């Protein structure tokens, strides 16, 4: 089973995992790493490394970071190429919810791509969608 480590500024990681659990139930094989301002780069690296080791069972680990270019992401990138790790940046709640639903039997790189797409698609302006729907109805 592919594991996941969610790494974020502040307590976002812990809360994202908790929030996803409310929707899809407790997610197995997920560890959250919250990064606080006083932590050194070494401390952060060790925390992520420990988390990866906790959830790694041979199928690989997805590192979900909160923002490309931020410290959690930069340190996450340092794990690329080491073990079987893929990094996905800009994690949001729809991606967290999708993760346990689609990971079964999927290779790590394919899972990362699917979740990326899910994250992209989940950002919308519902007001625009409703307007378009109303226009379509009028045309009919």
């Amino acid at each position, binding site marked *: 089973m592919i594991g996941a480590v969610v790494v974020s500024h502040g307590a976002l990681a812990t809360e994202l995992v908790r929030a996803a659990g409310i*929707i*899809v*139930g*407790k997610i197995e094989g997920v560890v959250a790493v919250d990064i606080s301002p006083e932590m050194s780069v070494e401390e952060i690296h060790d925390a992520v490394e420990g988390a990866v080791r906790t959830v790694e069972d041979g199928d690989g680990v997805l590192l979900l970071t909160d923002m490309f270019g931020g410290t959690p992401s930069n340190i996450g990138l340092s794990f690329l190429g080491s073990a079987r790790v893929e990094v996905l940046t800009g994690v949001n709640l729809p991606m967290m*919810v*999708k993760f346990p*639903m689609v990971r079964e039997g999927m290779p790590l790189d394919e899972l990362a791509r699917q979740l990326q797409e899910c994250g992209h698609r989940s950002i919308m302006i*519902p007001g625009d*969608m409703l307007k378009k729907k109303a226009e379509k109805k009028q045309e009919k």
Partner: protein
Amino acid sequence: MPLVLARIDCRLIHGQVVETWVPHTCADSLIVANDDLAGNPFLRSVMELAVPPGVRVRFCRLDEANRVLADADGNGERSILLVASAADAVTLRKAGAAFDLLNIGNLHFSAGKVEISPSVFFAPEDFDALGWLRSHGVSVLVQGTPFEAGTSFDAERE
């Protein structure tokens, strides 16, 4: 095709239903029987936005539900029936809706209610309604998502 799920959920269509029950049951149809929503086109279209393409959504009043259920059945659809309360489930069952297993996902808290699970709280009238359903051959299971074990209503009574 009989119903793949009948569920009481005060939130009706939301994340748990769309993300877990729809894929778990391979449903291609959602039937929401709710008098308030049936009369509110705006809320209906907002709720519809979250449903993935390929899943048909129908909103109907409680007294229309049987016709809609029969229509979905005739089309061979794999339908999930959603109602907002135990009382509504009783109304549908009395009208002849065919479900022998009733899932309870969310019934929000308010004063005087008994906690059954973190997301399900029963008022005294809920116990009565569910008791009635049970005595008419319906098994009641409190289960938020398909991955939880679920608690049967019988156990809760004792």
